[in-house]
């Protein structure tokens, strides 16, 4: 099959280990949370994954599969109980501007203008003066010319996510982490934002890791798709998307891969598992 290549990437213990210039590496990462009832929930169980420099990887799966937990661990916003995460061979300890993060709802600073929001990373690192020109470049790159002096409540949800992306990119991060940034947007806005991400990646070769539950989005954007399954959250399979960009959402390769992926999820959920309804 031209669309996907899953050979050699079956085992969940070492899924996605491949040759090449590895930027981000997860080894045997586990994370358990205490529940309010006094028990524990295994959010992530022995996840291993390598992300190459300049690669676009999507973490795809239903809610509760640990994809957001994985992203937060990479960002350093959360610490694993077991395993190790490294960026360029250095262990990840705590949050850093080298790993940019785009949150689901934008998480903009309401009291700052669009320009000041985008400049926030430079100011936080006390390097604003020497990089001030970058702010307007990024405003232009994300298509927000003329909105620099607006406040977050004056712009739409799609524009807010553009600001959030620009804000994360101002620090030239080695990897950009995207936590369902398009989840709350309408289809048209989502499509233009997806194209923006492709353009930005092509321009800067930034490594990107996207969390999504949208199969089409994952296929449209990714070099590789990491399929995750819940209870406990783990990597079940890694699928390469080999056909060239720009990808046509109605093309035969696209639809073929889409069918394959959906089938995998049906299989995954067909495994005998206890179901809880609250």
């Amino acid at each position: 099959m031209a669309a996907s290549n899953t050979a050699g990437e079956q085992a969940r213990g070492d899924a996605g280990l491949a040759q090449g210039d590895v930027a981000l590496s997860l080894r045997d990462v586990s994370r358990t949370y205490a529940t309010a009832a006094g028990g524990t929930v295994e959010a992530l169980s022995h996840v291993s994954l390598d992300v190459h420099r300049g690669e676009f990887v999507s973490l795809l799966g239903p809610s509760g599969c640990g994809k957001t937990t994985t992203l937060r661990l990479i960002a350093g916003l959360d610490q694993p109980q077991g395993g190790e995460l490294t960026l360029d061979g250095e262990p990840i300890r705590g949050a850093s501007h080298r790993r940019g993060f785009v949150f689901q709802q934008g998480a903009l600073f309401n009291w700052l203008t669009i320009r000041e929001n985008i400049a926030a990373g430079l100011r936080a690192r006390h390097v604003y003066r020497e990089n001030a020109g970058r702010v307007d470049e990024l405003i232009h790159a994300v298509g927000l010319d003329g909105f620099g002096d607006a406040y977050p409540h004056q712009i739409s949800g799609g524009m807010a996510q553009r600001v959030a992306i620009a804000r994360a990119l101002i620090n030239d991060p080695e990897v950009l982490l995207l936590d369902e940034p398009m989840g709350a947007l309408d289809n048209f806005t989502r499509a233009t934002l997806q194209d923006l991400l492709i353009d930005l990646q092509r321009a800067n070769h930034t490594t990107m890791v996207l969390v999504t539950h949208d199969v089409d989005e994952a296929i449209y954007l990714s070099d590789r798709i990491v399929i995750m399954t819940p209870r406990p959250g783990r990597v079940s399979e890694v699928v390469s998307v080999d056909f060239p960009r720009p990808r046509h959402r109605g093309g035969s390769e696209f639809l073929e891969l889409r069918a394959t992926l959906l089938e995998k999820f049906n299989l995954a959920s067909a495994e005998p598992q206890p179901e809880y309804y609250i």
Partner: protein
Amino acid sequence: MRRIGYPAAVALSVGGFVLAIAGNVLVPQVAAVEITPVRVGDWLVNFNGLYRMVLGAVILGYLLDALISRGNEKNRCAFVHGAPLRFAVGIALLAWDILGTKTQVFVQPFFPGPAQIVGAFLEEGDFILQNTLYSLRLYLWGYLLGAAFGVGTGILIGWFPRAYYWISPVLRFSGIIPAVAWMPFAMTLLPTPFAAAVFLIVICVWFPVASVTAQGVQSTPKVLFEAARTLGGDTRYLLLHVAVPNALPQVFQGLSTANAFAFTTLVMAEMMGQPGGLGYYINMAKIWSAYYKVFAAILVMAILFSAITKVLNIIEARALRWQEGLLSKQGEVA
């Protein structure tokens, strides 16, 4: 309300005050009131003269307002809207003048007419000004110091759980006690009456500002701190550039509550042992049964406190410029 035309609005705005002047000039003084003229420069002026001048100035002011707002549709509407009220004020002044001073139907000396009240400024304008400045100085020291302490304490207990644990019970306990209750201690322990009054205003401002500032800091969404951390922000940045600006709307809410407390405390402190101030002036006037002076001081307070509140509102609007349109937008949704 029935709509009135622009010319009618101008006539109404001015008409009431014209009638008030006419009443003051034409209605004879039927009961005995001592009217002593005061030399102002080369002129001899009595309180009726000053009163007419004040009314004349009001009339000129409204004519000027009418002229300026004529061009702009919005201002024009506002001017027309206020016209009946202005007429009513003029008529009320007319009636008050006749009943309070001219015929003395009101019980005297408790309810003097407006002309007599204005006369207090003629009689001892300098003294009233001195006391006003004393009040203003006291207010500024107390309020600014209290606000600074309040915001500082609020940030401290909002940010450090340990500070919250130890300081917030003190705040909760002492915040409920009216500041003037500490008067006896303040008067005996502090070196000057001025310092004692400043102390009382400081604590009445401190507690409300501190508690709402702390709430504002604590209510900062966690995701904003996470965003700041992934942007390279250190603890200092999280506190000063995320938590504090996030708390700013609450801080201003606390500042305006505290402002009202400060006025009350100020006047009470001045009435109970200050060598000056508008509260002191009221006390002095009361001893001599000069109630027109009491009213004059109340008038000055109204003007002074509105001006201070206005200044605070302007500062707030500037600091919270980013909220402009946000609140009305939420109102539309609701």
